[in-house]
């Protein structure tokens, strides 16, 4: 399955899912007017790839801000990853946020509470701009 890349806009995050490498990344801000239409295709692609491949997964989440409907979309992604991990596939989620960002740290707890098979870690955010890294094909 090919990579999925959607550039960030003012209200939607960078989606950089390098499916062949198993390295996925979300970065930036997320408060689209219709989060279902933004995240729907992303979630579909993720589910299809999870079903079609058994490459180990690493998801980096470097979101600075997301609204409540984006939070629901993220939860759906984590649940799809948890299902894959429960089936024996190695899945890591690295949740990056600023040290003083209590809200983002609390979100990490909200999401990871019942992820028993996904290895979920919280780390410092790498770049303040949340810009895309170089394409890794």
């Amino acid at each position, binding site marked *: 399955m090919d990579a999925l890349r959607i550039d960030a806009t*003012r*209200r939607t995050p960078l989606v950089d899912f390098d499916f062949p490498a198993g390295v996925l990344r979300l970065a930036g801000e997320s408060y689209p*007017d219709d989060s279902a239409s933004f995240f729907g295709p992303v979630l579909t692609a993720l589910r299809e790839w999870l079903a079609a491949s058994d490459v180990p997964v690493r998801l980096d989440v470097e979101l600075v*801000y997301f*609204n*409540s*409907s984006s939070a629901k979309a993220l939860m759906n992604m984590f649940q799809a990853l948890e299902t894959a991990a429960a089936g024996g596939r190695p899945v890591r989620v690295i949740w990056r946020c600023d040290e003083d960002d209590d*809200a983002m740290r609390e979100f990490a707890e*909200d999401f990871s*509470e019942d992820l028993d098979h996904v290895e979920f870690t919280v780390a410092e955010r790498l770049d303040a701009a949340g810009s895309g890294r170089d394409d890794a094909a």
Partner: protein
Amino acid sequence: MLAQRYAAFKQDLDAKGIIFSFSGYVSEGILYSLGEALREKMTLEEADGPTVRRVFSVFVEQMQNIIRYSAEKITAGDGRSIELSAGMVTIGMEDKTFFIVCANTLRSDDVPVLKERLDFLQGLDKDAIKAYYREQLREAPDEGSRGATIGLIEIARRASAPIEYDFAPLDDGKSFFCLKVRI
């Protein structure tokens, strides 16, 4: 007269600690622009990062509720996907804390369900709000709600005091809804 009238209007806003107030049609574009202005203004005034983020989060949820649920809407007649919803948003400082008030017209038929949700949230303490948020995060959205439930919980969890709200009946089966959140 003109300047006097508007000077009095401005003085009234200043006296109430209002940083900015917007009344009219809101769209996602207006939400974005006002949100950026709000973040810049708060950062310039050296509000701490977590406070800026809490105010911004409540602002976005409130504005998106107006955009989705306002009963006063105009839609482009030529099929373009432009929808403007009328409402009000006011942000200010009171007793050294930020507050956000949002208001919009809604159908009176929708009042009981919204009132029930808000009453429920008002009665929860911090830990209960957190637990309820986690539960709703894992639930499918209510039919027709377009996600308001989790949005209201998000608002309640960013508040430093219980949320305040009120409804005033208007003509034509509509009501005016107002929600005040202290950060």
